Every structure is written in C-alpha cells, then in structure tokens.
C-alpha cells in the first residue's frame, strides 16, 4: 500500500483547488465536508501507509516513489518524488492526524465567518505544502513545500485582512522567515554546486564521502540550513514573527504552532543529520540556538497577558527544546518531543479558542477566571495539555519527551553541563508560565461571564488530543520506568542513536529527579503568586527594576525595538531618500510610451466602416509589397 503515498499531499491540494474555485458558490455545509474531509482522507492514507510500513517493511527501511521528472537541464534533474522512512512517516502521520482534528474543530469555530471557504482553502493548501515538505525526496521539492507553508502562513495570519494590524503581522511573518529562507537558498546552491545533486539521500552519501569532518564546507552548509530552520521555526534571532502571528484565527495558530510550519526547521535539520554529524561546529550552533531560545522565550512567556501570546512564546521555547535535542545528537528525542508537542500544543490552542469564543473574544488572562466549574470539559482537556507541556511526571507525554531530551544533553558526547542546566531551567519556566495561565484562567473568581458554549465539533478534537497528550508518552519511557523504547527503536531505522559519552556522575534517574524538582518549584511558584498570595506577585513587580525587567521580557527582550532601529528604519529612510531613483525613469518611461501608444491607437477606432476597409486594403498592399519586393 506504500504506493498510495502520493495521495497524502494530493487530497488536500485537490480540495484546495475545488474550494478556491467553487467555494463561494457551493452550499455552506459542503465547505467543511470537503475541507476537513480531504485532510481526513489524507490521515487515513497515512495510517494505511504506516500499517503497511510496519507490517512489511520495505527494503532498506525506506521507500521512494518517483512520479515524474520535474526539470531536466544540464545534468540538473530534480524529480517530483516522495521519500518515506521512519522520520517522514512519523512526521506525516502526526501532521495529517492533528491537522484533521484542527480542521474538524474549525468547521464550527469559523462557522459564522464570511471567508469560510477561503479559510478552508488556505488551510488545505497549508497541509498539502507541509506534506510535500515532509515527503520530498530532494531538497528542491522540500523547498517548494517550505515556501508553500510560508505563503499559507502569510495568507492565514492576515486572514482578517480588513484590520491593517493583521496585514502588518502577516507581512512581518513573511519577511522575517524570508530572511531565513535566503540563507537556506544559499545553502542549497552551495550543496548543489559542491556535490552535484539535490536528492537528499544521495547528497548525504556524497557529503560523507567527500567532505572531511569539521572542514569549512559542511560547517558553512550546516549553518546556512540552520539559518533557514531558525526562520521557519521561530528560533533566535528570528523568533519575533511568531508572537505577532497570533493575529490569525485561532485554529490557524494551532496549525502553525503544533503541526506544521514551526516544526519544518526541526525536520530539515533531522533530515540532513548526516551533514551535521560531519559538521560538529554547526551542530553545536544548533544546540546553543535551541538552549538560548528556550530560556529567553520562557522568560517572555511568564510576562505575557494575552492567552495566545503566552502559548506562542511557549511554542518558541518548546521548539527550542527540539533544537537542543538536535544539537546534541539526540535525534529521535527531538522527533518524540515534536510528536507530543503537536498533541498538547494544538490542544492548548484549541482550548484557548474555546475560551476566547465563549468569553466573547476576550483574550487577556487577567480578565478571565473561575472557568473551572463553568466549562468542565474545556478545563480538564486544557489541564491535561498544560500538565503535559509543563512535564507533570509519570503520567504525561511531555514529561517523557522532555526528560529524554534533557537526559540526552547530559549523556551525549555532544552535550554539556551548561546545556543541561538550560534544559532544566526551561522546565522550571515552562511549569511556571503554564500553571500561571491555568490558575488565572480557570481558578479564582469569575471576571467575565460565559457567553456561549462550544458544541461537539469543537470539543471532540480537544478530548481526543487530551487523551493523546497523556498516553502519547508511553511509547518511550526511561530505563527506570519500564524501559520501553518503541519510538526510539523505530526512529533508529532512519536516525542514528545518541552517542553516549562518558557518564559524568549522574544517572538517568538523577536527571529525571532534578527535572521533577524544577517542575515542582515552577508549579509551587505559580501557586504561590497567582493562587494564594496575589499581593506577593504584585510586591515583586512593584520596584522599578522589576518593572523594567518585566517590560523588557514582555517586549521580547527588546528584539523588535532593536530590529526596528537597525533594519526597518534605515531601509525606510533609504527608500524615502531614493524615491526619485534614475532607474525608475526607465520603467515609468516605458509605461508612459505604452500609454501614449494606447491613446494613439484608440483614435483609429472611429466606427466608420470605410476607414476600416481602407486600412485593411492599405495593410494588405503593404504586406504584399514587403513579401514580393524584399
């Protein structure tokens, strides 16, 4: 059944075409049936493919499906071909499944919106692009999907285009990720120029043969690809677009954050892991970027007041964990965290959507409260996801995936104590901002009345994802807790295992114990400040220094401020100075000539038949003369 692979991106794409062309004319009830149904079909195909992959593994544990040759010029011959191995299989499975739930949810959430069919069309194109990205067997096809998700994020963030602020956020997301994409394009050029192919497997093979370890070329290529990944995955220093991307509809946030765009960078690095294995410097950069991002974004998340922005910073921070794992060579741990993160983060966004909708579009967590009794289903699912995000020990998926990463930073040869400390500090911060959110929204006194209650289509995905955020972790447990390695073993078909360094005086149990401690400290701090003694929190934020710090973290470590001054203003200034550029005269000259010609030609259209006849006769004579005498 592996040959059904091409259907996975094909279904959403077909649905996109149908909705984009006929969406406005079809009955409103048909739109979600096509829009969500196509993703459902993709998910079914993914399950079938997975089943067949597991029961009768293809030779070499990978499967390539060549559909047709895309371009064939001068030895450059990329194909439209799909490559399936354990890595892309897990990614595609999670992406299609979670996307289906999000689409299902959107059917109700967006139900009264004007652009109902437009929304589904964009979302479908998003999923189609993401599947292309994941399955592409060569970097060019991967890049096609890569740009596709970039385009769709632009369209979806600016979905409510009537508000200029949304358009601004969409442009920001587009341009900031474009900075990363430029680096990635250069990386692709470099790889093709030096190794002569863009087929990923072939490329990795040749890189391994031709390039000595830690020489300039692989390091540069690795850093350039990292640049692309940093842009898409909203890591330092290009993370500024993600919090602003909250301008889009909430299901879009769920899709961008959980299952599609931001994990593209993680996938890119995991896909090209061979390159990074011969470029340790570049890999170290990945780890440092990840560690720095997860701490910085964690601090920013603690200070936010908009429920969606808290979650946005949380995503930045969790993707930081994945980068950290990639950086220390714990490849499968990164993908494991990707999977659990997809479950709980999409649920958190969907839950936030439920809350926002029922509180009449209130987004500030300081105006919420006491929703525990009012909306029990929303509360329990949100709590499950929140605990999973924070890493509640033993029962939640997030605990296992994060624990695996943090243990990897300690035990791997490429890990270090500093990275490990960053990871544990990240747990503390995560636990703090997650429970701050939960306590403020669901406990205490009610501040805004519940205005309407969501129906089945919105709650069903939440419940399914809630269950997965808990049980999803049992695929892989540490040595002292049942020692299950199902996920890791499966991933090792495609990704190398962690190369364990000399044990540096701490066992896995000790590491997990300290992670648990960090979790508990965060939980207790949140409880103390936001449940028991609110005045304590106010006392801490009162002094000038902590106010300044709060503002600093709240504004994303002043990053926007800095970029505004370093890049945006100079460019705007240059553009203003250079308004009357000489080059422009050429183009406006061409436009002017065309316009004059138009006015001249327009005069000949007189409506006088004999003029036309004379024109035809004269033209024929001139034509004949030219043919006969020249």
């Amino acid at each position, binding site marked *: 059944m592996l040959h059904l692979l091409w259907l996975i991106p094909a279904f959403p794409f077909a649905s996109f075409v149908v909705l984009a062309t006929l969406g406005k004319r079809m009955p409103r009830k048909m739109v979600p049936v096509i829009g969500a149904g196509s993703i459902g079909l993709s998910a079914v195909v993914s399950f079938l493919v997975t089943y067949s992959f597991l029961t009768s593994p293809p030779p070499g544990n990978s499967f390539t499906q060549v559909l047709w040759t895309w371009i064939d010029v001068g030895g450059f011959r990329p194909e439209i071909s799909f490559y399936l191995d354990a890595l892309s299989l897990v990614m595609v499975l999670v992406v299609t499944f979670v996307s289906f739930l999000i689409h299902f949810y959107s059917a109700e959430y967006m139900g009264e919106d004007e652009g109902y069919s437009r929304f589904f069309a964009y979302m479908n194109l998003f999923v189609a692009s993401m599947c292309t990205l994941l399955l592409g067997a060569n970097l060019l096809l991967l890049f096609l999907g890569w740009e596709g998700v970039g385009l769709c994020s632009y369209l979806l963030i600016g979905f409510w285009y009537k508000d200029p602020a949304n358009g601004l956020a969409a442009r920001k997301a587009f341009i900031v990720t474009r900075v990363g994409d430029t680096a990635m394009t250069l990386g692709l050029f470099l790889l093709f120029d030096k190794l002569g192919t863009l087929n990923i497997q072939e490329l990795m093979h040749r890189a391994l043969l031709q390039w000595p370890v830690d020489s300039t070329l692989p390091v540069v290529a690795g850093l350039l690809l990292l640049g692309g990944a940093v842009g898409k995955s909203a890591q330092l220093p290009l993370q500024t677009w993600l919090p602003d991307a909250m301008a889009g509809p909430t299901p879009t946030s769920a899709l961008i954050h959980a299952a599609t765009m931001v994990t593209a960078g993680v996938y890119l690095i995991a896909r090209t892991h061979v390159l990074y294995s011969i470029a340790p410097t570049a890999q170290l950069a990945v780890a440092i970027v990840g560690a720095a991002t997860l701490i910085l974004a964690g601090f920013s998340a603690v200070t936010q007041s908009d429920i969606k922005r808290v979650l946005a910073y949380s995503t930045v921070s969790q993707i930081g964990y994945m980068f950290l794992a990639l950086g220390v060579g714990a490849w499968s741990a990164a993908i494991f965290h990707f999977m659990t993160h997809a479950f709980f983060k999409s649920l958190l966004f969907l839950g936030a959507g439920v809350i926002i909708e029922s509180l009449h579009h209130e987004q500030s967590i300081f105006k919420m409260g006491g929703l525990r009794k009012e909306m029990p289903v929303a509360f329990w699912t949100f709590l499950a996801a929140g605990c999973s995000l924070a890493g509640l020990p033993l029962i939640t998926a997030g605990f296992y995936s994060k624990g695996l990463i943090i243990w990897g930073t300690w035990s791997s040869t490429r890990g270090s104590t500093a990275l490990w400390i960053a990871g544990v500090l990240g747990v503390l911060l995560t636990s703090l901002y997650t429970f701050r959110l939960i306590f403020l929204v669901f406990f205490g006194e009610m501040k805004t009345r519940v205005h309407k209650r969501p129906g089945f289509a919105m709650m069903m995905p939440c419940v399914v994802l809630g269950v997965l955020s808990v049980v999803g972790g049992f695929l892989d447990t540490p040595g002292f807790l049942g020692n299950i390695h199902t996920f890791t073993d499966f991933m090792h078909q495609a990704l190398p295992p962690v190369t364990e360094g000399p044990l540096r005086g701490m066992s896995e149990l000790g590491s997990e114990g300290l992670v648990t401690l960090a979790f508990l400290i965060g939980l207790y701090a949140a409880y103390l400040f936001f449940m028991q003694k609110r005045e304590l929190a106010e006392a801490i934020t009162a002094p000038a220094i902590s106010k300044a710090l709060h503002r600093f973290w709240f504004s994303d470590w002043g990053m926007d401020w800095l970029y505004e001054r370093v890049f945006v203003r100079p460019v705007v200034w240059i553009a203003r100075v250079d308004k009357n550029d000489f080059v422009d005269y050429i183009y406006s000259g061409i436009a002017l000539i065309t316009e004059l010609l138009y006015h001249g030609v*327009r005069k000949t259209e007189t*409506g*006088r*038949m*004999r003029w036309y006849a*004379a024109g035809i*006769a004269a033209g024929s004579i001139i034509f004949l003369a030219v043919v006969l005498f020249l």
Partner: protein
Amino acid sequence: MALVPMHQGLLLAGILFALGLVGLLVRRNVIFMLMSLEIMLNAAGLAFVVAGARWGQADGQIMFLFILTMAAAEVSVGLALVLKIYHRFKTLDSDAVSEMRG
C-alpha cells in the same frame, strides 16, 4: 477552343478587384458597398478559375464553389443587417452609422 492566355484572365481579375475595392472605399451607401464586395469576390473567384485552367486542375473550380457559397451567406447576413440599419437609422449612409467608435 482557343485558350485565353493566363495573364489576360488575371489582368481582368485584377482590374475587377481594384474596381470593387475603389467602389467599396468611395461609396457611402451600404448596399453599394455590399455590391462592391461581391465584385471583389468574383474577381478572386475568376483568378482561381483562371489558375485552375492553367494547371489543368479542379482545385480552382472547387475554390470558386466555396466562394459562391460564402458570397451567398454574406449577402444574406449583409442584407439582414442593411434592413436592421435602415429600420433604426432611416438611412443607409455608412458614415452616419458610426456609433461603435471607441
């Protein structure tokens, strides 16, 4: 039967065509313009027939049949238009009917 030299036939066709064209350009009455068109069509037909006779092939005569058919169709459409124009503008002056200018 004495064969007419080809160039004489073609000359006649050319003269007829030129006359038709001049008629089309100088006349303002739509009916006369239609008649001039017919003359030009006949000139073209004559050229075909002459050429067919010169090379002893039936192609020229077949083309002439086509031209006849086309001329008939054109006249029927043209006369219908003439009737409509007269009905509406009470004139057949083609210059007066120049409402379609851009």
